[in-house]
């Protein structure tokens, strides 16, 4: 088996005159936490959209788990084993927490029991139980997702993406807007999740978090890849310091 689960080659997408992602290429290794960082508007979410099948690339290729998945749509990507969460919480707000997870977990039944009562989908229901426990949402299971606190919604967002039991999980700023404690818990959780069966691709604004848990970091700037390497290598890179760390520090002090 190839050590790299995801290979991105020369990927580009334009929105009108703006090139949001410009010939970006990198590899993510199986079982690793690979992170993408960069300032606002660097093209991180666009890169996620390209990989997860939300939008089609104009140039370049995406190779996932030994297959060329360029141009796959979202449904095909989930079937291939790649699932994602969203930067802007994207849940079924009018449905209960349990139902949000059950809908997502239904995928692992592979179409079985579609016309039987939901209780009969044992695999899916067990998966929901597991996730409620792991994401500390058990006590909120019957609450509507729209009534959860922001932190809980962000947790549910990750849990929903995880429900289909993917080989790779794309997390787009999972800790956005979270309190410090929630952020720390999420950091620990992401670290725990990464395993031989689950590789993680992370977009995150919190540089400290990224540096703590990542095996590999890709830095983007204005649609282009600026640098990549281990957290230490990236931190030491003068170009990265100029373009990114300076700015973030500035923000932190503002």
């Amino acid at each position, binding site marked *: 088996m190839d050590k790299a689960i995801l290979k991105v080659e020369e990927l580009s997408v334009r929105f009108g005159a703006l090139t949001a992602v410009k010939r970006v290429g990198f590899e993510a290794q199986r079982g690793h936490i690979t992170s993408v960082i960069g300032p606002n508007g660097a093209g991180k979410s666009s890169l996620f959209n390209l990989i997860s099948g939300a939008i089609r690339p104009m140039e370049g290729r995406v190779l996932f788990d030994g297959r060329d998945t360029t141009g796959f749509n979202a449904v095909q990507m989930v079937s291939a084993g790649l699932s994602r969460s969203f930067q802007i919480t994207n849940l*079924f707000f009018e449905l209960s927490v349990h139902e949000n997870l059950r809908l*997502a977990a239904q995928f692992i039944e592979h179409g079985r029991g579609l016309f039987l009562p939901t209780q009969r989908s044992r695999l899916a229901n067990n998966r929901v139980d597991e996730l409620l426990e792991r994401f500390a949402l058990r006590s909120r299971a019957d609450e509507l997702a729209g009534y959860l606190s922001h932190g809980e919604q962000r947790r549910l967002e990750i849990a929903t993406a995880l*429900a289909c039991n993917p080989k790779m999980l794309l997390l787009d700023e999972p800790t956005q807007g979270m309190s410090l404690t929630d952020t720390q818990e999420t950091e620990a959780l992401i670290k725990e999740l990464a395993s031989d069966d689950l590789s993680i691709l992370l977009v995150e604004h919190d540089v400290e978090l990224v540096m703590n848990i990542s095996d590999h970091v890709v830095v983007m700037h204005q649609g282009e890849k600026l640098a990549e390497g281990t957290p230490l290598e990236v931190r030491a890179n003068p170009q990265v310091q100029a373009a990114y760390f300076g700015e973030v520090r500035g923000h932190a002090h503002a």
Partner: protein
Amino acid sequence: MGEFSRPASSKQINSLRLLAVLFFAISCVFAFIATVVEDVFFLRLATEAMIFGGLALSVDLLLGITGLLPLGQALFFGFGAYAAALILKNWTVSIWLVLLACMLSSALVGLVAGLIAIRSKGVYFALISFGLAQVVSKIVFNTVELGASDGIIGVPNAQILPGLSSGQPTVFFLFALMFIALVYSLLNYLMKTPYGRQLIAIKANEHRVAFLGFNTWRFKLSAFVLAASIAGTSGALYPMLRGFVSPELMFFQVSGNAIINVIVGGTGTLIGPLYGSALLTGLRSVVGSFTPHHQLVIGVLFMIVVILFPRGIIGYLAPMLDRRCQKGQGTVQQEARGG
């Protein structure tokens, strides 16, 4: 938001079941009384309400459950009505065969229309569905072989069982009631399955469903075909009741009335649309006997209901019943959910 979107554990579903039992119980009592006093007019009218209730259920499946606004659902209703009329005029067959033929053929028509309409979203879907019905109704209106603007008259009764036919008011009312109960039970069952829940999810947030690995197009198309089949089979009962069909059955008035029945009754509740159809079919007829401007009266009434009860009559009653039940049990459970 449809009531089925609430947590499965919620009391809401129970009060809806109660209201459903009440509906079918009232219908049976009505049939008994009307038969005893030999009131053919009201039996026929109630049968018509059931038939339009079937159309309303098909609209609710799309509008209230899946989140698609079908402005031309009368297309399938009218198709079923014409198909049944033609079969009954040309062959002597039992009602079961007629309904089976209409069920399958309107599903097929639904598949063709769905392939055209389902790719579009929101208002575009609504307009394409509207356009399809307009085109087909105009074609029927101008086709001499289908009786053109006169439609087909003199449709004979259909045999249900030896000795029982659609010509007997009580028998046919009970037959229509049974048919509606069947359709209602089927849809109610589907809402408890992953298939039905997936439709609800599409209404709630279609974009996300794709990222859960489900092909939303397939779910929407299948719901559309099922709705077409329900509408077509309901329509097939129409010529058996009235003895004729006309192009008006496909006109926007019929589609629009069905949507009003659904909204007044309670979108997404399934039982609400049946209450809505019963109430408004009755009202249209009663008001219509006093004034030719009954559409005006219905229109004003529709506005009042929408303003006072935006979730419709059942959408208003069901949560209220729940709260009453909960207070009776002395528990204070998430009041916020009702709002």
